[in-house]
């Protein structure tokens, strides 16, 4: 019964490896079975839809079609028709494709025409697209999760960060609220954590603005971290690889830009679940984050091993050195002159 079709998404194999490891680690405790879609492809992330609609939807729908095929092949009508993904961007894209193919039959036809080239077809509405958090809170249930907790996260102050892509636009009304959803808070609370009131929970992390307009991204990351810090959070918990990447990997640059010195680790909620279930940090991919959670996790008596990967630039700079970017304060001083 607890079997779902699983679409991991590209991040799970690269930047969010730790997320995947932690998911694997908690699966058995919860009697969950995730059956990976065979031969899945990238969902196109947020960019492709802005460029060319039909190919972008076809790219996404290919995964849905594969999932449907797998569902039909596996067990006729008796099996699951839920496809689960842990990535918010993938979740949004899959849900969006499913919704708009149904809403706009012409689009559905065109996409299916494209899929036909690969011998595939997707009937909109055939699958339920859901996020892992949704499955854990509403299918597995908070009480079951509570029963698995052997190491309550008591004393760990966590800022629950849902990100912007998960609760909106919420085509199928899966979340309690679009601005201030409570699912992540509830789950963390069940783990025993001290959940801080975090009103920015659905604010944007900057997404890919880190690549095309870093100042904007830094501003957004800054807001999130400042408020989490102001509310006394030891770390942030997220459900989204993108959010994790931005807050974690760009914190240093953000600090530099603003002339601040924040140290706000961010972990995947599944990593915290793993800890609460008694797993050890190395089973959960904890320790590879750039902003170390070592100090934060010490509050609950968990010792994070120091990773071998050396800190510092991952890639040797090639060519001539670039001038250092101005921080905002410096910029101000420049203007004063």
């Amino acid at each position, binding site marked *: 019964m607890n079997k779902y079709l699983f679409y991991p998404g590209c991040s799970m194999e690269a930047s969010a490896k730790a997320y995947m490891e932690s998911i694997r680690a908690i699966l058995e405790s919860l009697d969950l079975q995730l059956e990976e879609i065979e031969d899945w492809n990238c969902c196109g992330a947020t960019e492709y839809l802005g460029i060319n609609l039909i190919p972008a939807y076809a790219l996404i729908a290919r995964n849905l079609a594969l999932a449907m095929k797998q569902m039909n092949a596996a067990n006729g009508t008796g099996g699951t028709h839920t496809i689960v993904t842990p990535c918010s961007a993938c979740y949004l894209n899959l849900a969006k494709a499913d919704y708009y193919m149904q809403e706009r039959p012409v689009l559905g036809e065109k996409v299916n025409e494209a899929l036909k080239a690969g011998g595939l077809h997707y009937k909109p509405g055939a699958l339920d697209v859901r996020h892992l958090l949704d499955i854990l809170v509403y299918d597995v249930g908070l009480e079951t999760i509570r029963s698995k907790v052997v190491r309550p996260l008591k004393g760990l102050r966590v800022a629950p960060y849902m990100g912007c892509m998960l609760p909106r636009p919420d085509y199928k009304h899966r979340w309690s*609220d*679009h*601005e*201030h959803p409570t699912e992540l808070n509830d789950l963390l609370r069940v783990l025993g954590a001290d959940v801080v*009131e975090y*009103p*920015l929970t659905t604010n944007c992390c900057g997404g890919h603005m880190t690549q095309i307009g870093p100042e904007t991204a830094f501003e957004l990351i800054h*807001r999130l971290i400042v*408020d989490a810090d102001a509310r006394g959070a030891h770390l942030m918990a997220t459900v989204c690889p993108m959010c994790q990447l931005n807050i974690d990997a760009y914190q240093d640059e953000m600090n530099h830009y603003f002339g601040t010195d924040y140290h706000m680790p961010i972990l995947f909620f599944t990593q915290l679940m793993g800890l609460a279930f008694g797993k050890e940090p190395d089973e959960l991919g904890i320790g590879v984050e750039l902003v170390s959670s070592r100090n934060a996790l010490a509050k609950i008596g968990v010792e994070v091993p120091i990773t071998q990967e050396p800190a510092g630039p991952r890639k040797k700079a090639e060519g001539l050195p670039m001038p250092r970017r101005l921080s905002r304060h410096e910029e101000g001083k420049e203007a004063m002159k």
Partner: protein
Amino acid sequence: MTEKKQERVGVYVCHCGTNIAGMVDVEELAKWSAEKLGHQGVVIARDYKFMCSSLGQELIEKDIRELGLTRVVVAACSPHLHEKTFRTAAQKAGLNPYLVELASIREQVSWVHTDRVVATEKAKAVVAGAVSRVIENEPLEEIKVPINPNTLIVGGGIAGIQAALEIANAGFHVYLVEREPSIGGHMAQFDKTFPTLDCAACILTPRMVEVGTHPNITLLTWSEVVNVSGYVGNFNVTIKKKARFINEELCTGCGVCEEKCPKKVIDEVFEAGIGYRKAVYIPFAQAVPKFPVIDKENCTYFIKGTCKACEKFCPTGAIDFKQEDQLINIEVGNIILATGYDLFDARRVSNYGYGRFPNVFTSLEFERLSNAAGPTNGNIVLRDGKTVPKSVGIIHCVGSRDRNFNNYCSVICCMQSLKFAHLVHERTGATVYNFYIDMRTASKAYDEFYQRVLEEGTLFVRGKVAEVTDVARDEHEKGKLIIQVEDTLIGKQRRIPVDMVILSVGLQPRHDAKEVGRLFGISCSTDGWFTEKHPKLDPVATMTEGIFIAGCAQGPKDIPSSVAQGAAAAARVLDKILQKEVALEPIKASVDQKKCSGCRICNGLCPFNAISYIADDNISYINPALCQGCGTCVAACPSGAISGTGFSDAQILAQIDGLLLRTLEVEQATA
């Protein structure tokens, strides 16, 4: 096969000036009707400039008398306009009014088509349909029923109070039923009323007292209607009078019980959740009736079995813990529903932070806050009960004009928000911001009030507030509620830190409006407000005869409009009462007992409970007085045992054939 008696039909084609004649060849239509429909019995077909004029009517009357017409078809405008006119004309000439049929060739032909030839062809089909149909019409008699002069008014807010007084003063008896312990409604909770800033209590309470003492008014508070049966003129209503646990005969309303009661609870109703009351309480000082009520859920005696402090101290021994709910049956002729509104739940707009931030208030909370009789004695302070705000943001349209919540405008919020701005200004001197989408101050002296508030220095920001947050971005935002808004007049995002936010929440239909509607046999609009008979010309009547609506139950409105509607509904009721009897449309269904097999398929279909099953005879029966004439059971009867007057199978099938011009072809084939 019995030969049908050949009817003598007259067809009258109206030019309606050029309204019809401009697009339909009316002369050709009349000529064609006489020629092609002659075999069906059309003996005369005329066209005339204005059939509805007295000369036009006389033309028909004359033909009925002189040519012995037995059926009349008038090809003119919609039957909703002039059906009655021509029926009356026929009646004057001695023809049963129901043997007249209107063919709508104006609304359905000349006004909506653009090709004269095509329009004329369609008009012919419409006339042929009407001729075929009218031949199958049967003479009908209006059903007259006497009107019970008593009236039930549900809801003791200002609209209900007004209606009750109008009718009672005219000398007829009124039963006024109110769900809460006192009448007064929302208006009793307000501090001031816009735009004159009269004290709400000062103008309302004299009316309440009048209701309480009026010899023609039976006041039933703490009561609810649980069942309604019957029809216009003869409703049978069951009212549940909830136990107050107070003997009303003995109680003097002295208030000692409330004083002595040791149990304090949050008053969610009258004080909107920001004040307290006792477990035995009179909701407010000027309550009518003055009797308190014991809140069973919170009373220590009912919970633990001991206490009885109230009983001990009551000087007249009026406390009666054994009192039970009482069912009262009354008979009335007309009913006015003035059940009011609910407030939009501000928590649904989670980005405005109501329920998360202590200093975000709803409009009703603010009313209580600024009311001298309220929990802070009229001091406008923050939730801590002492700090006076230095800056206040008032957000309009919360839950209204918003596709996520209610699409409609709640009408009163602009003026209410202006009133709040004025009061905050006057009493605290704080800086006040009003955030509005559009300013709607369209009524007598309303815009002047807006100008006044502008001059007082209230700052107006045009834009829909995105969020209210406590996440400060800089030092001067710290500790404040920051209102994030796009100021659409300057085209900029603004962040405005304030101490207090007031949400001008919208009005919503009562949460149980649908059930109440079903109870009284009236319908609700998509938004959930009670549907009036006509949005412009009949705003207080409903589609159900004898049931009227007034006040916010019909849609959001301010106090003057509610009062006007209450009075209007009363006038309509008085009109009915004075007519002494009412004529019911004779469009009714009936069961042919011989054919009825008692299968009971129709039994579950009537929402007016007109169909009953007589087990002894194994047949179903339709009560003509309850039947509203929709015809659903007629269409449903599998054995064809149910027939309906006015819209019989024969009439409709004949009209189909006529519209398809099949009635002509047979003639041509045999001719």
